[in-house]
């Protein structure tokens, strides 16, 4: 990595061109040292550092590295963290995720004044978090009140409780069913990833071969 690569334009290009969250993470990861060194300079580029750390923070969340995201907030220049609005919002968001406060997570993502550069990545995380929560709710709840489901999934709990058909239709489209009498929704568990399953079979067969080769 050369110092000249680390600029607002490069950061914007990295965010917009990354095909997957892991690629974004891999692209931003080597820049952390540069950012860290820059943060000690007197005339440090505050906006660039703020945007970089926030984008890097979201790349952790998008790759499900919640612990690492927390440690990143400890590695950031602490004076910048305490004064920069975007980074403060990152910390508040992290706390909400950590405490499983789903409504707060959606509120911070959707209502905080994120810089334009970060808006696409914030939107990506909103979708990612919603999908992840949907899978978890589908697995854990056998029956759930519409308002609770809406709260988990970032829909409007009040209108869903009143019977907002649009929100409920979205869930029914995913295979959920609704009992008219009790008013409850019955989630449909989402199947596990089959590719992962196939890979573990291959790994396992290699292990069995290894054990077999040592029997003699």
């Amino acid at each position, binding site marked *: 990595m050369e110092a000249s690569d680390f600029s607002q334009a490069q950061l914007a290009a990295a965010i917009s061109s990354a095909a997957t969250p892991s690629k974004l993470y891999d692209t931003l990861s080597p820049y952390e040292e540069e950012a860290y060194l820059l943060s000690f300079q007197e005339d440090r580029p505050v906006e660039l550092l703020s945007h970089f750390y926030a984008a890097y923070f979201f790349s952790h969340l998008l790759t499900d590295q919640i612990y690492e995201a927390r*440690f990143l907030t400890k*590695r950031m220049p602490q004076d910048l963290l305490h004064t920069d609005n975007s980074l403060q919002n990152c910390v508040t968001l992290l706390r909400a995720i950590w405490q499983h406060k789903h409504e707060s997570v959606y509120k911070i993502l959707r209502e905080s004044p994120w810089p334009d550069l970060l808006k696409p990545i914030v939107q990506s995380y909103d979708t990612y978090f919603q999908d992840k929560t949907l899978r978890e709710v589908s697995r854990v709840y056998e029956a759930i009140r519409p308002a609770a489901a809406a709260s988990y999934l970032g829909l409007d709990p009040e209108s869903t409780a009143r019977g907002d058909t649009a929100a409920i239709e979205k869930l029914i489209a995913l295979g959920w069913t609704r009992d008219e009498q009790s008013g409850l929704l019955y989630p449909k568990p989402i199947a596990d990833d089959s590719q992962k399953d196939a890979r*573990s079979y291959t*790994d396992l067969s290699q292990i069995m071969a290894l054990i077999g080769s040592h029997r003699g």
Partner: protein
Amino acid sequence: MAESIQQILTLSSELHNSRSLSKNDEDRHIYELVAVLRRSSHSILGEISLTNLSASEHTLPFLFALLYQVDLVRNRTGSSLPNDIEPGGWLWLRAVQFLGSFNGSQVSHVGREWCQLVQVFLFVAENTSKPFLAVRVLSKAILRMNRTQNTFDPLHPGFLRLCLLSKAYRYAIPILDRQISILPSSSESRDRSDYMPGSDDHAADRKSEATSTHGQLTHKDVAQYYLYGAMIYMALKEWDKAEHWLIIVISLPVANSVSKIMVEAFKKWVVVSLLKHGKIATPPRIISSHVMKIYQTVAKPYLSLADAFEKCDEQRLHNEVKLGRPVWRADLNLGLVDQLFEAYNLSLVLKLGRAFSALTTANVAEKASSSLNSAIRVESYVASLAMSGVLEARLLHLRVGQNSTMLRFPASMRSCAARRNGLRVELMDRGQALEVLSRGIRECNTDLGMGHESIDLVMKRQGWSAIMKNGMTKVNADDVVLGVEEDIMGDVS
């Protein structure tokens, strides 16, 4: 013989371009270059321009010239931390360049110089309070050096310390997750891989290098490495691995008394055990009774805390945590102890789950701790545990308009697919460990001369082959066994 910079760079280029050389020939070329570099005068090393040299193409000249420059700058300034080697300084940048692109097989022949460079790097990173700047580079460099062997390197503890100081735990994981199968003895320490065929002069040089103090491994190095590793796993809440690494530390052999590091590990092990199992696990039998007594004496506040936890005495647990706060803080275990309340709640819910197949959140609120005193809190807590996969439970809202929720805990609820996947992951972990172990055994066999060829040779010398063919009488067999023993011992002496 006077060396010249051209000669050094020519040898280095030949080595870089000699892809068709056999391993022995490559080793011989490397050794020749190392010998030239070690003989080279300061003026020649000073002539090598690091700015225009490729660290991957001219690994060895780069390393020697870099170390020379570091020494030069330190001597000139009279400081161990001159600006040039501080992060961002020109020598720091050259060191980063080297560690990011060196040729591992060449560097494995110059263990002393490699250790010198890494120690400078570790020292500068820690003493300039910028440990983060070293961890990524060092992680990759250590992995490159140790690509084929899982050898313990005396530099490992220093690297893990930097990871802890900088809170950059991710970079330690690829190193921690490799099973260490070789602990080099102090006499061979760094230079286990420095096999260089050649003359007696070479052997003398090898011996000199092997006894260098730079790479000597101590009991403290091993204890520190496993303690630091456990601390990293603790930070990542990987309690299984943390517990395993702490057990290694507290079970280390001792002569008379236990070390401070082992005591620290025992204290952490008590808390990790509670966090993982909800009780103190049975200590390994390998720990002798007198060592166990020492642990129990010096870790009394921790054992008292564990007693309150195990007896589900919430009030006492709060009091113990509060009273012991100065102790936890002094031992740097405050964050770990604070997690006990969460573990206490989890332990209670798990106990209820084992006792009942289903119950309402209101029932749980009546039986649970003070922090879970309402049905809403219980639902929120259990849902978060179930959604994150910590607890196998299902939730069932009863009716719209009511707040009551049914929790179901049957063991059979865990899907067959989930159990199968869990078992597969566990088998894969064990399989990897087995693979490392078998590789280690193969290497040990080779080192001990226990390969098929060596055994055949020994048998031939002892006339075993003829005996095997002709069949052995009892007397003959005894004679042969005694003979083999004598000869093996004779060979060693």
